[in-house]
């Protein structure tokens, strides 16, 4: 009787769990349908604080992200690969026909996630005066940064400041010099030499770059702006999208900042319920100048996609364990007086799982 009883429990608990997950999924689909409906009627989704966002703060998001990264790095047997990757493609609307390799050749999900595309899959707009999209995705917000507050709207009802996103606050330059003394953000001893060398470079040359840096742009008076405005565009990449980041124009990259930060999810729900999401999350900011003046590009990570790898700085490590690092840690580096010249459409970085 006892064994009979316990045999009954197991299927019951499983069914109950599956039903709960199903109910949560249906609720979420209903909410997303509501958002799409509102958008179709021209009503932008509004910011609504959510207890789940508070709950998220208590989760070990970085540990979850890194575990997810380890999982998705596992080499899959060849026979299993088409099933996993086709499943991923169906779940997230990925276009497998554009992948440059036959899908059996991607050894792990992480390898598949950073797939390159066939030659010619993404032709560049031929106009010489346009700004190109650096990624595949959805335009969440775009517009002109107005007023002295230089705020960007995260979602209707909540905005965040450009200087917090880009790290243009004066403390950043001092923090790079203060980092020289403390070296507080070096990941481990043998890197401290390399990191402090970069920071010596950044602390001395940063001053000469400041004239073009975001700090100068964001703090100058309206009379100094001349005939220029500051614009922004926020692009969201879904899990099924092509995840390599290209250059939006011909430009010179003078400065790179890596914000250690958190790894909140950045899906549409998170954007509507977590304040300062893009300013809190781990991100890598490239800053420089294009033909029309200042330009910066921030690649913002998330729980699912916590890694950002730079083509011209492969040694930069993101989504590292939290040991000894504060969330406010900023590791910055300058690319010298002439910066790095990058051509429109050139690949500059890649997001990765975990």
């Amino acid at each position, binding site marked *: 009787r006892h064994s009979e009883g316990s045999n009954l429990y197991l299927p019951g608990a499983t069914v109950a769990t599956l039903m709960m997950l199903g109910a949560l999924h249906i609720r979420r689909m209903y909410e997303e349908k509501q958002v799409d409906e509102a958008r179709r009627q021209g009503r932008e989704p509004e910011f609504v604080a959510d207890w789940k966002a508070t709950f998220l703060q208590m989760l070990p998001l970085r540990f979850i992200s890194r575990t997810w990264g380890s999982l998705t790095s596992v080499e899959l047997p060849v026979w299993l690969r088409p099933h996993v990757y086709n499943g991923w493609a169906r779940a997230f609307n990925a276009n497998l026909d554009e992948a440059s390799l036959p899908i059996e050749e991607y050894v792990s999900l992480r390898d598949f996630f950073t797939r390159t595309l066939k030659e010619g899959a993404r032709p560049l707009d031929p106009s010489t005066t346009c700004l*190109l999209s650096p990624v595949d995705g959805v335009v969440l917000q*775009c517009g002109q940064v107005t007023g002295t507050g230089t705020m960007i709207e995260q979602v209707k009802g909540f905005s965040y400041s450009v200087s917090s996103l880009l790290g243009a606050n004066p403390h950043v330059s001092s923090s790079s010099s203060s980092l020289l003394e403390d070296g507080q953000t070096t990941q481990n001893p043998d890197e401290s030499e390399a990191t402090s060398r970069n920071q010596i470079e950044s602390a001395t040359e940063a001053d000469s770059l400041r004239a073009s840096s975001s700090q100068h742009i964001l703090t100058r008076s309206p009379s100094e702006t001349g005939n220029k405005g*500051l614009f922004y*565009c926020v692009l969201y990449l879904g899990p099924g999208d092509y995840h390599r980041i290209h250059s939006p124009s011909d430009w010179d990259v003078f400065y790179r900042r890596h914000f250690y930060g958190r790894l909140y999810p950045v899906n549409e729900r998170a954007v509507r319920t977590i304040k300062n999401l893009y300013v809190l999350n781990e991100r890598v900011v490239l800053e420089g100048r294009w033909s029309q003046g*200042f330009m910066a590009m*921030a690649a913002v990570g998330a729980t699912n996609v916590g890694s950002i790898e730079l083509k011209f700085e492969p040694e930069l490590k993101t989504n590292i364990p939290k040991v000894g690092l504060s969330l406010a840690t900023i590791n910055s580096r300058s690319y010298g007086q002439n910066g790095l010249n990058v051509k429109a459409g050139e690949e500059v970085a890649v997001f990765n799982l975990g």
Partner: protein
Amino acid sequence: STVVLVFEAPSVETEDLSAHEKSRPESRNFRFTVANGERIKMGQALGD
């Protein structure tokens, strides 16, 4: 994941435009060619 672009571009006040440019202010100013919620692919124009 998310990419945020922040950039300077021409934004001339209308009163500063010459008579000729007043007829086509967009000839001088940057304007987006995409809208919120629109899907986009790498290499497509965001604006001009």
